[in-house]
């Protein structure tokens, strides 16, 4: 066992880890930040996407030890300071961008990373960026609408279903 220290959602966080401890397990089991989900555990589904030093990564495919000293942001860090939903989260609610909600933390974190690099993405760019995030409920249309709306664009401009 060894000690790892990082900043998670703006706060210092540390804990004991093994070499094989995945970042997602450290977040969920040591820090009790269970908003980050483990879907496939094979880096296919994207339910575990978090930001490490501002970049979206799959937390099931990175070791906790590799996040030593890093700035990590999870879905728990996406709400506003007063606890109300952040812009992207609110847009997901407004546009019914989730049904069961299992993939939603990863979808929101990927959307946030996309909008950080590309504040006004086209529908095609959004679909392309979400290539590594799987949703088995919504058929993606409402997720795309939510992200268009969160970027201040017309959500109804989406291609016909």
């Amino acid at each position: 066992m060894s000690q790892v220290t990082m900043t998670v959602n703006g706060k210092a966080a540390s804990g004991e880890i093994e070499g094989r401890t995945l970042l997602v397990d450290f977040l969920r089991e040591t820090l009790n930040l269970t908003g980050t989900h483990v879907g496939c555990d094979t880096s296919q589904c994207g339910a575990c996407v978090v930001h490490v030093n501002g970049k979206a990564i799959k937390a099931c495919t990175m070791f906790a030890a590799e996040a030593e000293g890093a700035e990590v942001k999870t879905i728990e860090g996406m709400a506003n300071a007063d606890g109300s939903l952040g812009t992207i989260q609110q847009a997901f609610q407004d546009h019914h961008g989730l049904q069961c909600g299992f993939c939603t933390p990863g979808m929101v974190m990927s959307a946030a990373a996309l909008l950080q690099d590309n504040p006004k993405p086209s529908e095609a760019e959004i679909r392309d960026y979400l290539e590594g995030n799987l949703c088995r409920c919504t058929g993606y249309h409402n997720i795309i609408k939510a992200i268009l709306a969160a970027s201040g664009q017309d959500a109804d401009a989406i291609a016909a279903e």
Partner: protein
Amino acid sequence: MYAFDIERPATIADAIAAMKGEDAQALGGGQTLIPTLKQRLAMPSKLVSLSGIEEMRGICREDEGRICIGASTTHTEVAAGVEGYAALASLAANIGDPAVRNRGTIGGSLANNDPSACYPAAALGSGATVVTDRREIAADDFFDGLFGTALEEDEIIIEVRFPVPEKAGYIKFEQPASRFALVGVFVAKFADGVRVAVTGASEEGVFRWSEAEAVLSSNFAADALDGVALPGSGMISDLHGSGDYRAHLVGVLTRRAVSAA
């Protein structure tokens, strides 16, 4: 996963020292190695993480005009940072998905030599040079069958140097579930000839299609390949496609890569 220790050296010298231990395994971005460890297909006693070594990250041009990419440079960084070689930047921009590209590295991809990976086609198609902690290896001598390379057990890739062709194109036919190349073809036209590297198709891993290189070197046009075809024997046959299908795709994608160059 079996238990192992993990070390995060900050310098190349420390990484070389850490690799001397028995059963030490270099860890690039981990996008292949971590799934492999989860399946218990590997049992290293120690992982040496190369992602924290700043001197192994970044892109520059050397005096001979080659583009030099540090082994720990991520696909995202290559996609955004390579100038003057659009086919290489675009190849990096289309590996896996954005989150995978933010972790996966060029050195990791080449050292793994997955038979369906994109980077081996770029390195072989460009005639790149793989620089390790102890020598320089030409791409023609580097790849050695499925998941095999010329690297010794404790050898680390430090940098990859790409000569810049006059024209180049890379087209892959994605396997839709894994997003790996079912077949991918990298074509590069240099002043002294054309190189064609094929990934995803052969049971021997990435290879140069010399027949196509010969005709394209005298006429760099898609229709120059009329009548030129690969046999299906020796091609990978699996539930995603037969050997004959893959051989056919090689011809189609080579034409498209030439047109795109």
